[in-house]
């Protein structure tokens, strides 16, 4: 990197360092002690490492620092919006009955809506409220696995995050009805949003959460999000993320998951429509017979950019991980995938599978893919498969030979390509809904008008 660029990035970072020092009081005053006490350490780290730039190998194709080079406002004093998300988002999918929650930019939106009764002891809602109600549980989990030491984005988020969303399921409890969180971006000016998600599933629990991202206004948004998932022994956690943002949104997400014995975690991310997205994943399998299933699907056109960076760490024997990432790139879009698998020395009988398949439907689309396997145990089953190509011409002719028009045949094949990622989802009605959304996306019928595409 040129020296002048390095100086430029230092200047971008310095703005935010100054901002934090100047407004530290406001940041704290509008947050809670549990979150505030993590800021000092994060500040030291951020000053040291700053934002990731494309100089770092892991960010080679996503120059994240660049996104912050803008006049972005932060709503540190929590100035309220005169908006009721329920007016804009009326969820009435007949078969997708969920308990619905909202984050409005980086704040939990306290609703008057009656939720279906949750099992006793389960908490779902505001991070600030949770930290006051369960200070010890919060202390034991918040910022505990979201390691910022080598991740400037996490440090930055910890510095400015003031609220977020928590799902807490105490042991031997099953939350049958799926939870749905809608993360809305609103604002007239360009805005930086920093939000936190915390999912704590204690021993022998089950919970399913669908998180939908929606940008409503046309302003530019730079969003950092840090998610921590704790799956204790025999916990089953499903997290389905659906991004349906405008092209003006930069989404910088870092997800950390720590799993104990026999736990089963599934995380899928479907980027239906986006601007610039980087999703970091760090899964640690820390108890035997744990399973992690990670899926990603990116549907890109125009100049959209999706970068998924997944790190799967097998620390103990007898665990299983399965990754499936697929990209369909049209026009001038860019896809990036890096899949790291680490099998530690004693993690015998590990099964780790990784698949990355990409369809470049245009000569101007670019895909960068890199599998990285580090295996230090000798009795393991690991595999990775990577293909990047175009539509299968034989299949295309086969469909046409049955009377299906060329355009329709192409759409059928593209939809078919997405199918196995969608099939990872363990909520039937959501799967069907997604199939139809994907079909509409390819047909250009997905109207982005601020309405929830899942709910409408």
């Amino acid at each position, binding site marked *: 990197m040129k020296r002048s660029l390095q100086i430029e990035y230092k200047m971008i970072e310095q703005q935010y360092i100054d901002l934090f020092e100047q407004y530290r009081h406001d940041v704290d005053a509008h947050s809670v002690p549990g979150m505030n006490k993590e800021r000092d350490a994060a500040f030291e780290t951020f000053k040291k490492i700053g934002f990731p730039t494309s100089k770092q190998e892991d960010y080679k194709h996503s120059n994240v620092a660049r996104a912050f080079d803008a006049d972005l406002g932060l709503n540190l004093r929590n100035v309220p919006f005169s908006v009721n998300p329920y007016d804009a988002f009326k969820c009435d999918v007949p078969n997708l009955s969920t308990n619905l929650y909202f984050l409005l930019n980086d704040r939990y939106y306290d609703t008057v809506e009656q939720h279906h009764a949750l099992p006793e002891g389960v908490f779902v809602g505001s991070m600030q409220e949770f930290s006051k109600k369960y200070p010890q549980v919060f202390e034991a989990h918040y910022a505990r696995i979201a390691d910022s030491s080598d991740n400037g984005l996490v440090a930055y988020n910890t510095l400015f995050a003031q609220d977020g969303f928590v799902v807490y399921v105490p042991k031997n409890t099953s939350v049958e009805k799926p939870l749905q969180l809608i993360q809305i971006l609103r604002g007239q000016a360009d805005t930086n949003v920093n939000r936190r998600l915390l999912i704590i599933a204690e021993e022998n629990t089950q919970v399913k959460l669908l998180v939908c991202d929606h940008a409503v206004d046309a302003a530019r948004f730079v969003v950092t999000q840090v998610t921590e998932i704790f799956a204790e022994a025999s916990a089953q956690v499903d997290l389905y993320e659906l991004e349906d943002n405008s092209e003006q949104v930069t989404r910088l997400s870092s997800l950390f998951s720590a799993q104990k014995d026999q736990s089963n975690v599934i995380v899928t991310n479907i980027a239906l429509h986006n601007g610039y997205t980087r999703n970091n994943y760090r899964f640690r399998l820390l108890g035997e017979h744990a399973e992690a299933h990670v899926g990603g699907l990116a549907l890109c056109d125009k100049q959209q950019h999706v970068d998924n960076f997944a790190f799967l760490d097998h620390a103990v024997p007898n665990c299983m991980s399965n990754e499936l990432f697929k990209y369909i790139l049209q026009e001038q879009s860019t896809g990036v995938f890096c899949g790291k698998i680490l099998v530690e020395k004693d993690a015998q009988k590990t099964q780790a599978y990784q698949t990355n398949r990409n369809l470049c439907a245009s000569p101007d689309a670019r895909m960068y893919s890199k599998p990285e396997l580090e295996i230090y145990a000798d009795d393991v089953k690991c595999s990775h498969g990577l293909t990047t190509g175009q539509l*299968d*011409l*034989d*299949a295309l*002719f*086969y*469909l*046409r*030979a*049955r*009377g*299906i*028009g*060329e355009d*329709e*045949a192409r759409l*059928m*094949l593209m*939809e*078919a*390509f*997405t*199918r*196995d990622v969608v099939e990872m989802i363990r909520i039937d009605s959501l799967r069907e809904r997604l199939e139809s959304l994907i079909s509409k996306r390819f047909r250009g019928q997905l109207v982005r008008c601020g309405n929830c595409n899942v709910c409408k």
Partner: protein
Amino acid sequence: MLKINNLHAVVEGKEILKGIDLEVKAGEIHAIMGPNGSGKSTLASVLAGNPKFEVTGGSVQFEGKDLLEMQPEDRAREGLFLSFQYPVEIPGVSMVNFMRAAINEQRKYKNEPPVSAGDFLKLMRDKRELLGMDSQLVSRSVNEGFSGGEKKRNEIFQMAILDPKLSILDETDSGLDIDALRVVAAGVNKLHTVENATLVITHYQRLLDYIKPDKVHVLYAGKIVKSGEADLALELEKRGYDWLANA
């Protein structure tokens, strides 16, 4: 129904068809036989409109229309059907969606409304029974994980569903055991009427024990070198193709 006139075609710069003449009338079954590499499958592919093959001369009339001018999908909508020698696996596209899309595109072409769910399911069930197909196969992705025989049976199943005017069976017998061959042949015979026609491409006489052709043609080095009645197939079985090459 089908009139082929002096048809020439090349693939990857190599001329495979060197002037084919053939006429098939409604109600007829024609068999095209010939050794490997004689151009049988190329003829089938060219008629179906496979873009890998380039027509360099001649004409093909199908029901009075210029077939070579049409896109592959329009040929199918006009009633031409190719049973593929190597049916393609298409993971993620279910047989049900595939067939529904195919039927509805053909109906749209004829300005007919889409098929109702009830009629469609009944049609699928009836034709599945006709071909003795496992109901599971129909609920799976197109040809995915099908055995060779299942794929061929699936081709004839699709033919039964689409009810074409002209069916071209490209080596439908290869990969079939004798029982499957009987079922498939019985299916073809049941579907045959005085209004449609069938072109059977094979290099063994075996299939013709079950599907009786009205005419047999021998394709050799890109040309039809001999045409005759059904008994020509038996003669070929006995004498091979060499005597024709030298004829």
